[in-house]
């Protein structure tokens, strides 16, 4: 017998069930999954205005943010880069390549980030107020590396796409996308580590800075 059969048989034997897993048992498990039962959520996440909660949680995570119109996103990026003293060249998602980047003095390359890029620019599928989290789904035009490799990650979040909790985000994935894509990537602030003497350092392997532009 294979390892698979042995493991499954041992589980069943020890729980007092004989023979292989039955069709009824599988049906029961599937029915339970289909219910998508939701557990209790923190009260704070339910009561508040999602936008305000999102902003507050971003601050806790050291994510900075600004609120502008879509058309002025390039100007906000230029302002941010000047303030942070970083080069105004971005590796970004295709969906924002139509904005008037040159007018703001920004060099925008619509492609996946590589190790030489200093600023990665992305949108997001939605954002979660409860924890100040961005959800990025993988797709051909939405490479995840742009949110991971460069030292600075700038992300556009439409205010209408802020949902209260993670459960709401998953519900949105089911209705709008169906099956989950290869990667569902939840980003909450710049990367950090506390592995040396439990001292928190911002900027481990991922970005040092996360800047959210709310539109």
């Amino acid at each position, binding site marked *: 017998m294979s390892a698979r059969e042995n493991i*499954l048989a041992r589980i069943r034997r020890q729980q007092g069930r004989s023979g292989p897993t039955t069709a009824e048992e599988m049906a029961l498990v599937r029915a339970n999954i289909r219910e*998508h039962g939701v557990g209790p959520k923190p009260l704070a996440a339910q009561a508040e205005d999602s936008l305000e909660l999102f902003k507050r949680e971003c601050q806790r995570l050291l994510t900075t943010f600004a609120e502008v119109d879509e058309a002025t996103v390039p100007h906000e990026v230029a302002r941010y880069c000047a303030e942070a003293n970083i080069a105004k060249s971005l590796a970004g998602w295709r969906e924002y390549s139509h904005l008037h980047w040159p007018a703001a003095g920004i060099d925008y390359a619509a492609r996946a980030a590589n190790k030489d890029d200093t600023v990665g620019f992305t949108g997001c599928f939605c954002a979660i107020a409860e924890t100040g989290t961005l959800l990025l789904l993988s797709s051909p035009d939405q*490479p995840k590396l742009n949110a991971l490799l460069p030292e600075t990650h700038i992300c556009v979040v439409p205010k209408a796409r802020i949902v209260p909790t993670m459960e709401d985000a998953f519900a949105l*994935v089911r209705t709008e996308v169906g099956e989950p894509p290869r*990667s569902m990537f939840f980003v909450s602030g710049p990367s950090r580590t506390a592995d040396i003497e439990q001292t928190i350092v911002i*900027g481990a392997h991922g970005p040092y800075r996360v800047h959210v532009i709310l539109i």
Partner: protein
Amino acid sequence: MQVQSMHFKRNASAKLNDAVLQRNMQKAKGKFVDGRAKAVSEVENWEAIRTHAAALRDQCLANLDAYLLEFEANATRHGAVVHWAETAAEACDIIVKIAKENGVAKATKSKSMVSEEVNLNERLEAAGIQPIETDLGEYILQLAGEPPSHIVAPAVHKSKEQVADLFVAAHGKPRLTDIPAMTREARDALRDHFLTADMGISGANFIIAETGTTLTVTNEGNADMVTTVPRIHCVITGVEKVIPTLEDFATLIRLLPRSAVGQTIANYLTLTTGTKMPGDQDGPEQMHIVLVDAGRTKFVGTDMQDMLRCIRCGACMNHCPVYQNVGGHAYGWVYPGPMGSILTPTYVGIENAGDLPNAATFCGECQVVCPVKIPLPDLMRKLRERQHDMRLRPWSERIPMAMWAFAAKRAGLYAFLSKWGARVGSWLGGRDRLIHSLPGIDGWTQGRDMPAPEGRTFRELYVQRRDKQ
């Protein structure tokens, strides 16, 4: 990692006398305990979330075979290959074989305790494959050639000076002791490895039956590169990690980072389902998931099944007075603290880890903080009973226990012995009312004094007062 748990007592005394370790441990303990307390206090309905989480883990464990099959079916549907390993050696064989078949020279790894359990790095090296640990803590330990001493903060026992020495030897750069600068140096050292590895090996905090998804929870962002950049992604995880749905993950992730380090959320949660899709610019071409038993099913269907609810947050060790003083290495295997005192004897055999279930003060704090309500002290007590029944405890413990049991079952004899015991104890206490040494069990009084009894037993006082009324 080789099991050293049979030497717990010897290792623990060595660690207690290790001044550097003691200093490093004292620094860490407050941060974990205070951080958790603050994060938990912000969630009014913490108890309700805990109860729900424990119930959903139980429900999965009660039908573990069916949930695993459902996971397998969905992962396969998305292009992953699911492998099953009964033993540690089998798990390594599978991964080494995949690596060899695909001409892998270098594998980046994100933190995986299962991979430590099965000695994966050693096996990869023996096969000529270079494993690179990318979690900062694990990277430090790989340079030091040491096993982790904590499941969440593996290098918690090291000071920055010790890390600085390791970095000088490995990177050949000027010695730094500024922690942010040291972190940056490690980041630079690992960058190229991320981009040039042929295989990424990750663990999984959970696997989701509904979608066939595996997932990692990190703060550094290393697991996200490990699972995204190389052309092959290999997941190694335990069979108990399966949960039903994405919603269940949402519940558990409210508990995990708060319990572990006092964060409301970990910086990166990466849920990966299958392989790269057509047109994707990143993601692996092959995805392999190795489901490891290696002792886990020994808990299934027994009076200790609750242990499999564990979500590996580390809160039980952070709050354990024994762990806080001896550190993780004393426990002699991958899993330290209260959870390790139950997992290790069960996985590797109670005869190889006899002191672990006894390495507890039974203060009960671990059970109080465990986010999935595992009754850890009860489980340790069960292991102690089992040891006693298997005659695995030494005579020096069993004879006094048998004598005590004999007396305790005979009321008259017990009254007589305790009456005289209390008087002798009182006399031994002398002027300062402390007993400094106990003949025959002087180990007990080596590092502490015993308060002397006051000369009368409870039963005597009770009779006296009752008669007065």
